[in-house]
């Protein structure tokens, strides 16, 4: 594990490309671009199809269409009863709340694990690491029973509250690694100035760990937005559906007779991910490269 790249690892190996011939380089570019487009083609095709009349999707299977229309978006929006916008809104509320929850609970825990000395810290830290690898199935059933018993089914609480309790150990680990890279002299100087642990956390460590916070926020948002099992399990009232559960209802209700409206709503459900991707590419790549997040 120690040989894994760390934060801000520099690009020491520029590799042996410098003396490649220009033609060879152009060829590599061409291969990368063509393969990349082939890889992404299904998505491009889905976007194009969503603007075609439903019956043309299969008769004119290329990207081009003789007629373009927004009808799929109009139809899809209301196809399964409630407007799809409601599901998107629910997803947004839940995702933002989960981001806040993770930022709150994981920073606190990470600070304690990396900077404070207390009895049982070793055992607790080890336990925290183990839970990273714990398959969710092991706690699925009792958690469901627990939340059902206290009457939380059909609310957003089972999706959000665990995040405020630091259940995403991955992020705690990520933050611990990051805080370890912040010079301890800063803490010591702050202590000399009369700061207690709480003040050091709030005024020294937290402002310096912004990159780790960004990575946590971005991944929490994406994971929560994509999460399917948890909302499927807990949200039974259609008005509470998230976008993925709403999308899945397209198959249940229609047996997929009309792809157009479904594609249109699928694209709407991916737009927030695209936006996050465009805004936070650096954090995404850095986060994966340093910790192996998905």
């Amino acid at each position, binding site marked *: 594990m120690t040989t894994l790249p760390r934060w801000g690892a520099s690009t020491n190996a520029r590799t042996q490309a410098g003396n490649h011939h220009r033609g060879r380089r152009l060829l590599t570019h061409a291969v990368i671009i063509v393969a990349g487009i082939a890889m992404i083609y299904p998505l491009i095709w889905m976007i194009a199809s969503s603007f075609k009349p439903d019956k043309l999707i299969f008769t004119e299977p290329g990207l081009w269409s003789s007629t373009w229309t927004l009808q799929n978006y109009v139809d899809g929006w209301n196809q399964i009863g409630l407007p799809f916008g409601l599901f998107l809104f629910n997803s947004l509320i839940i995702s933002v709340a989960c981001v806040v929850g993770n930022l709150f609970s994981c920073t606190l825990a990470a600070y304690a694990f990396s900077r404070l000395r207390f009895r049982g810290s070793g055992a607790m830290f080890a336990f925290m690491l183990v839970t990273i690898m714990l398959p969710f199935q092991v706690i699925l059933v009792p958690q469901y029973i627990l939340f059902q018993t206290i009457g939380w089914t059909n609310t957003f609480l089972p999706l959000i509250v665990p995040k405020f309790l630091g259940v995403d150990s991955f992020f705690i680990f990520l933050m611990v690694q990051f805080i370890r890279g912040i010079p301890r002299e800063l803490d010591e100087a702050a202590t000399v100035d009369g700061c207690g642990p709480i003040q050091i956390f709030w005024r020294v460590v937290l402002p310096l760990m912004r990159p780790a916070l960004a990575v946590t926020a971005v991944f929490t948002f994406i994971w929560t937005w994509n999460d399917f*099992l948890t909302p499927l399990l807990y949200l039974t009232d259609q008005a509470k559906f998230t976008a993925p559960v709403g999308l899945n209802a397209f198959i249940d209700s229609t047996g997929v007779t009309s792809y157009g409206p479904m594609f249109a709503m699928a694209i709407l459900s991916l737009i927030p991910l695209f936006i996050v991707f465009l805004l936070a590419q650096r954090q995404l790549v850095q986060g994966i490269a340093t910790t192996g997040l998905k």
Partner: protein
Amino acid sequence: MTIRKAEGVVARPRATAAVKPRARRRKGQRSAYLFLIPWMAGALLVTIGPMLASLVLSFTNYNLLGSPQFVGAQNYKQMFTSDPRFWHASGVTLEYVVIGVPLQLALALAVAMLLNRGLRGMSFYRSFYYLPSLLGSSVAVALLWRQIFGADGLVNQALALVGFHHLPNWVADPTWSLGTLVALHVWAFGSPMVIFLAGLRQVPAQLYEAAAVDGAGAWRRFSSITIPMLSPVVFFNLILQMISAFQTFTQAYVVSGGTGGPVDSTLFFSLYLYQRAFTDFDMGYASAMAWVLLVVIGLFTWLAFATSGRWVFYEGEKE
């Protein structure tokens, strides 16, 4: 900016009351627990508690109504001796892991090496190739997959262009349906690729230069430099991808419409567990399955660690 803020705190002179070390340490202890309150509550209520509960439940019959009835090891016995669907689901999942994970890692490594040539625009390409990984676990892409591999889907249309006809409906054909999910897994190769790329950049260029001087060909450089130098990263990716592949749920659920069909060909372990728990309300049985899964994942992880000494090379390690 943030640094200046921190220095402001540091630089402000203030007379400090001399705090006795022990008192300070005790105070430190107390505030440590204060910081850990949310996490400890979560660990107890949402992790340890439910874990123990599921272990206990696995020895009972419980359908959410009434109270759990203790039945000893009957759930486990039933699972191993008289439930063909359990074995089938295990087989499907294992096949998926054993085929999908190596394929995905191989593709990730190949693309990472292609991108690691000091090309201009590398970071753009990297983001681009990462994109499917971001979307791969979404319901939207799973639905798209159903179409792509359908009877008149994109794949068949592309194959028809090059002269193949009478092609199967891949998602509805039990021979191929699992293959479509493996393809989805492989398609989302972006995150191991990014990790490989970061690893490749740590391999000293001098090694390649020296090998080239000694007349080593491309394959030799790959097998004798890249693979050994990258083996810790391969190991890391393998563990991560294996654990998550064992737990695959969403894609299987969406592509098969929640059934694991056709004829159980995509009945993943997690999907079968879900059906037992939330369709049949057989909570005891589902809990027992979850513990079997935990043990199997633990075993595979242990196996990977146990054999890692033979094939994972750590720099600076003494022979």
